[in-house]
């Protein structure tokens, strides 16, 4: 996701501020992890111990939860996140070709990012747009009935934005 850097506030302060305002029951753990990722784009490994302390869990338990869910990242994403659907419906409409095209254009593999650090490329298994496949999501924007040519246009548009 696109992050706005706030001068003077580093990621660790943001995490700590979230951890002082969230609930402390284990049931509040996923919402807290979401809040952290929404704020800084990932869940820093060095904060796992802080999170564990707040929820009265072991570090292993927190690490277990963070690593279980595909949505949570432990490394910072590039400026923009591209998710390409690889599920059956999109496969039936050329998702494999679209993915190969995206890899070529960005010069990276799945779970990787382009050299300039502009785009992270991730797979996703269904965006619920199956009647208008193939679908992708760039940051929080959905796009359906996608072709390689339209993909290029979208990338160019995102690149041209400030």
């Amino acid at each position, binding site marked *: 996701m696109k992050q706005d850097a706030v001068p003077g506030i580093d990621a660790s302060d943001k995490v700590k501020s979230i951890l002082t305002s969230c609930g402390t029951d284990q049931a509040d753990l996923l919402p807290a992890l979401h809040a952290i990722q929404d704020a800084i784009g990932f869940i820093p490994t060095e904060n796992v111990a802080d999170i564990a302390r707040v929820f009265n869990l072991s570090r292993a338990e927190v690490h277990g939860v963070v690593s279980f869910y*595909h949505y949570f990242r432990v490394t910072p994403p590039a400026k923009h996140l591209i998710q390409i659907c690889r599920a*059956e419906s999109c496969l039936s409409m050329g998702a494999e070709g679209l993915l190969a095209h995206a890899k070529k254009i960005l010069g990276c593999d799945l779970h990787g990012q382009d050299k300039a650090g502009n785009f992270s490329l991730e797979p996703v298994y*269904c965006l619920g747009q199956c009647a208008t496949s193939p679908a992708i999501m760039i940051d929080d924007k959905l796009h359906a009935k996608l072709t390689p040519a339209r993909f290029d246009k979208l990338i160019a548009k995102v690149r041209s934005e400030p």
Partner: protein
Amino acid sequence: MTIRIFVPRDSTAIALGADDVSSAIAAEASRRQLDVQIVRNGTRGLLWLEPLVEVETAEGRVGYGEVEVDDVTALFEAGFHLGPCTHSASIGLVEEFPYLKKQERLTFARSGITDPVSLPDYEAHGGYQGLRRALTLEGAAIVDILIESGLRGRGGAAFPTGIKWKTVLNAAAQQKYVVCNADEGDSGTFADRVIMEGDPFVLIEGMTIAAIAVGASKGYIYVRSEYPHAIATLKQAIASAYEHGYLGSNVLGSGKHFDLEVFKGAGAYICGEETALLESLEGKRGVVRAKPPLPAIEGLFGKPSVINNVLSLASVPVILAKGASFYKDFGMGRSRGTLPIQLAGNIKHGGLIETAFGITLREVLYDFGGGSASGRPIKAVQVGGPLGSYLPESEWDTPLDYEAFSALWAVLGHGGIVVHDDTADMAKLARYAMEFCAIESCGKCTPCRIGSTRGVEVIDKIIENKDRPQQIVLLRDLCDVMFNGSLCAMGGMTPYPVLSALKHFPQDFGQRPGDERPV
């Protein structure tokens, strides 16, 4: 007079440019100094036509399909805001459009018609009549109506909803929960999303009725993180329901208490399995629980819990409002009521088709779907999601009915249909099913965790023609272990797509027709 123009806010419409179209219409209307009100409705389910813009006229609502920003000026020039016009995007009166007219909309009666987050709109279209009736009844009487209606779980397992509720009702506990499974992760399904984005109050009403029936005071809607639009719409609707006394400590002045919140998942397919979902709600890894105990006895936080799919809960209000026999009169055999079919993949007219059980697959594919999107022959159809069987043409005359599909070693599931044309390589799709299982397995049971990885390797060898006959025997044995030895449907049903692909399309696995054994 104010002209009302409808531009859907459904995420498929948005993915195809509806937000920009809506802005363009507003700008053009303002330039022409016209009094136009834009309503952001849900989708009608004619998804291939999105963005489907509708204009309210004296004759009814007139639709314009696949509208792009560049079409907007021309639409005004053609006078689309004044009444039916001849613009090429016109599909005429939407209610008369055959794809829609042939349907029987019960659960989706309001989708596409109303403003999804307008409570007055919901009430004006029959909303909350079910809850009002439920509030006059004892819990047991509500449960009896559900049992009588024949409603079976629409999430895929088709377990009778009323029986589930009865178990929770009869379980003695201080605290009970109602949990909605909105972790719609199966490819080819989007009906839950369409409800959440297009008519969220019907889900809220259904959950409130469930809570009153079984004596629960707290509910959660577990929505996948891939559905940000659904989450936003639900939150808006829930806030409105609280504000107007439909949720909270005194539901419609009845003295009953029901709190409801949205819980966001985090990209784990397995959390669509009910016990993994409960673990996730409790803040843990989404690892499947062994059953028994059933969630109805020991569910969320160890308390008796109703856990139902979005569509099951969204079907409850109409059953309460119009009665069990009204609902039961639709359908065939033991499949009563209507099924929201989701037609997807390589299909010309993909969308949502709600109709009584009993329609055949061929009617869905051709009468509604219009054949493949590519124009090539349809080769295989996967019904019921990634864990459903692939059906060849010889099986397309099967009626959509739970039992008829079981008899074919297939699953009707949630009615999601993904179409593949003749360029599909079924061995690759079988490999994909194993790969998906390996990626998404929760890891608790060995057949699923290890079996899926071995499955990918074995299918790779079959594709590469390394010891092919032996590997095919091995693949069958492996599927047998996964089918019989897995803890839940993830590992247990992955053999359905794999073995059905092998059975019906042996040539894609380098076999001659006739080499195959019955599954």
